């Protein structure tokens, strides 16, 4: 079963949340970030190239223009491969773990899997980001030595920064599956 809903990110851009239930103990939640706009991309590159053309015409050296083109190409590739996030998804598998995936615009996917034994809880936290207070979802990892302690906080959906209404949906979905591990009896 799959459903998609539209929300807004913390900065006002439109994002979409996709919920998929694969089975009773497995759920996938994906947040799609706004796509790269062709208008802004071509505006930025044309501006840089115009400036470089002006400089090379002034200094009568064509190296400036070719260097600028090279830099813009490399910068674009680096931006698409390392910076621009297309989709961030959360795969919660009861009694196995939680998997966090970020897909970049160039197709690269970076995945982290956290085992269920290490997950203490999934909570919504507040943070002060520049001049505003934003909410973010995070996974609390268990401290192996101290049963009440938290060893690490893993923030989720950092590029898309959804607002509280979207986060509450994700939080409820996660908690339904996390509760199963408390109510299920331990096997002998």
């Amino acid at each position, binding site marked *: 079963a799959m459903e998609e809903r539209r929300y807004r990110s913390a900065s006002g851009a439109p994002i979409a949340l996709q919920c998929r239930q694969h*089975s009773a103990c497995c759920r996938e939640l994906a947040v799609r970030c706004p796509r790269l706009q062709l208008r802004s991309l071509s505006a930025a590159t044309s501006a840089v190239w115009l400036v470089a053309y002006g400089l090379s015409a002034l200094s009568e050296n064509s190296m400036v223009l070719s260097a600028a083109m090279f830099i813009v190409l490399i910068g674009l590739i680096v931006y698409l491969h390392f910076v621009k996030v297309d989709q961030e998804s959360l*795969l919660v598998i*009861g*009694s196995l773990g939680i998997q966090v995936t970020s897909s970049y615009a160039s197709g690269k996917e970076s995945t982290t*899997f956290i085992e269920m034994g*290490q997950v203490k809880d999934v909570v919504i936290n507040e943070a002060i980001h520049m001049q505003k207070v934003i909410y973010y979802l995070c996974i609390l990892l268990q401290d*192996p030595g101290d049963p009440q302690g938290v060893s690490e906080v893993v923030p989720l959906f950092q590029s898309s920064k959804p607002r509280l209404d979207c986060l509450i949906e994700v939080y409820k979905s996660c908690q339904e599956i996390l509760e199963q591990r408390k109510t299920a009896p331990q096997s002998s």
Partner: protein
Amino acid sequence: MVLKVFFPSCCSSAESGILIGRWISEQNSAVVLAMVHFPFIPVQVKQCLSEVQRVTKVSVSVLGSWSNSKQEKEESLSEFFEDLGMIFSHELWIQITKEGDSKFWSCSTLQKHSNNSKEEEIILVYYDQRKVMLSHLHPPLDTASSTENKADDASKLAAIFDTVAKSKVLFMIDRYDDGPIKLTHWQSDGVEASVIVELLKQASVPACMLLTFLLSLVSGICRSRVLKFWPLSFLWSKLSTCEQLGHRLQHLQVISSNKKAQNHTQLMRKANIFVSLLIDVALGILLMSWLYRQNRIGQLADTLIPGADHVAEELQDLLQWLMGAPAGLKMNRALDQVLGRFFLYHIHLWISYIHLMSPFIEMILWYVGLSACLGLTVALCILSDIIVLLTFHIYCFYVYGARLYCMKIYSLSSLWRLFRGKKWNVLRQRVDSCSYDLDQLFVGTLLFTILLFLLPTTALYYLVFTLLRLLVVIVQGLIHLLVDLIDSLPLYSIVLRLCRSYRLAAGVKFRVLEQQEGKPLRLLMQINPLSYHSVVQTYRLPTYSCYPKDSWTSLCRKLFLGELIYPWKHKGEKQD
């Protein structure tokens, strides 16, 4: 709780049989290692399994049954399987059925000793057996240091990787063998081996023995008493080439040792050292072939003497400038002339020394260049040592200027305290008031005034020579940085991460496959490789680190007070 069955993807098309593997009860998961096909005798299967258990220390047992039916004849088979379940003692009997070529299998469990028919959810996780067996799971870097509770907290995934890796013995029995048991596992697609690798393994044993013998000879010579006399040992400690050679000798000893690598880390370290040495020597030979072609050595020697002359002339011009009115500052004429003439005489000595050496330079360079075949790092160290030798006069000037300046600063501060009527109490390490006699005060004030007005001249000379010295130090530092980089870069690990990324695992990732209503959840477990940054950090070779130990503030303080700075002082022990 949810039951997890880890199924090797290579067994998906195997014939019907029974599943053998390991049952991990704390995690409620079953790791299937192989399949035994019909016909088999249960007693022989049990014998074989206990044998495997004894050798590998992994508790292998019969987990359940697998039926791959091309036609509709499962009814009799399912009863047959249930009877089998009675023979093999296992709490939970797992039955997996595949119909025809369908992707969606049905999986059911049979609890033997309890009658509650609670429907457990089953998750079927496919894994690539060969990749999991060969890969090494790296714990996160921060938890690797804490060694307590390691056994209790062994992550679930580590248990699975461990199980598959340790069951290598099981994988040696194949279904094409003539033994009593026919198994299917990842080797069933065809036993793999490489002829080249086997040949290399055979050839490496005598090669190692020869290398060990040669190394013992060399280290015996190095340790002999002849080389330990004072001038020679002082020289060896100052030259960075000897240190680099010693470092490489140690590496060779590690590689040529007869003991097999105990664990993964040692194996990777040996491999990294071997590849690093190979690349180093290859680059060195390349450099040598480039140098000796077209008489480049002669050209180098021809430019060296005029180059040194040019540097000396520039220094003379600089000193003449300082002796005049440098940058419009008015120096104290007498002190200026004294210092300037002193340094000019030194330069004159230096130039004559260089001219004395000039006929022999080419020959020396030729023989020294031959040592580049020992490796590029050795060649770079020799270059750094040559720079040190050629700029020795700059170092001398710096030491003279610094000592003069330092002495002046200390006497000034002491006389300033006298000026105010205070004294440094050595016993209590603090400044105390003191009553001086009138003539003490008079002489002290006179000396203070003289030294104060002579300070700009000395300070200027000190500044100029310190800048020159810092320039040489920076060049030396860059060369050493490059040598360090070549020494410590784990090339084998990086290439392994590039080509066989499943060998270095940071974790796993799951992919949800197509689902069907009523059938168990299907997941594909893939290996998540380690990032390049973590690879370099984990497998870095230890080197003699020569990064500056002083922070910027202490460096500035030392410069201000005139203390001698040696930012690239080599430490005695290795740094990881």
